[in-house]
């Protein structure tokens, strides 16, 4: 499963704060691991994953 799919799964229940913390934690760790760079801010990735999740489920 790709990092992206894992993030999508984590975002599935955003109203549960533990899920949100896991999601934000995963995005943060990916940014610390160098997955993102100056061109890919972590907050922007989080927003994008959320929009993709909504496109798929709404």
């Amino acid at each position, binding site marked *: 499963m790709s*990092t992206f799919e894992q*993030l999508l799964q984590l975002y599935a229940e955003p109203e549960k704060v533990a899920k949100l913390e896991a999601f*934000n934690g995963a995005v943060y760790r990916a940014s610390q691991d160098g997955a*993102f760079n100056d061109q*890919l801010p972590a907050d*922007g990735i*989080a927003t*994008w994953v959320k929009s993709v999740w909504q496109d798929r489920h709404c």
Partner: protein
Amino acid sequence: MSLLAITAQRFDREIEDVFCATIKRLIYEAIKAADDPVAIELVCEQWQELLGEFRALERETLLPRQPSPDELRSHKVIYQQAISVAGLLGAAVRRAHKISWNLEANVRNSLKERMELLGRQVEIMVFEYNGWHGPRLTPAQIELAKKVLCVDV
């Protein structure tokens, strides 16, 4: 019965006015409640109900389709005020909890639980606000993100 006394079908100027007036009333009542744990809890219960109605309207009207710019504008204004009032209530409950050391344990516990709930609500709302109204990745950034995160293109 709805706290808003209105059956809204969409985010528009009318529902924005009603939401914002209700939020202003809650702010006034929170200030008036001062350090009274019971009065503060009553305001928090109304806030909880208002948040539920906001979420329901969001779920029923914005998520199933592409909202119009006007709907998004009203949604944004309400969201900003909702985050502010949750922060204000959190500060009021934190203060009441701090000076409640000589009250019964159940009162203190109730204040602590409410304080933690408000903190979680603010965290989630700010996250969601960024999702709805924060900046978007540019097309070039999205293409880069797809490669970095191994998304099937």
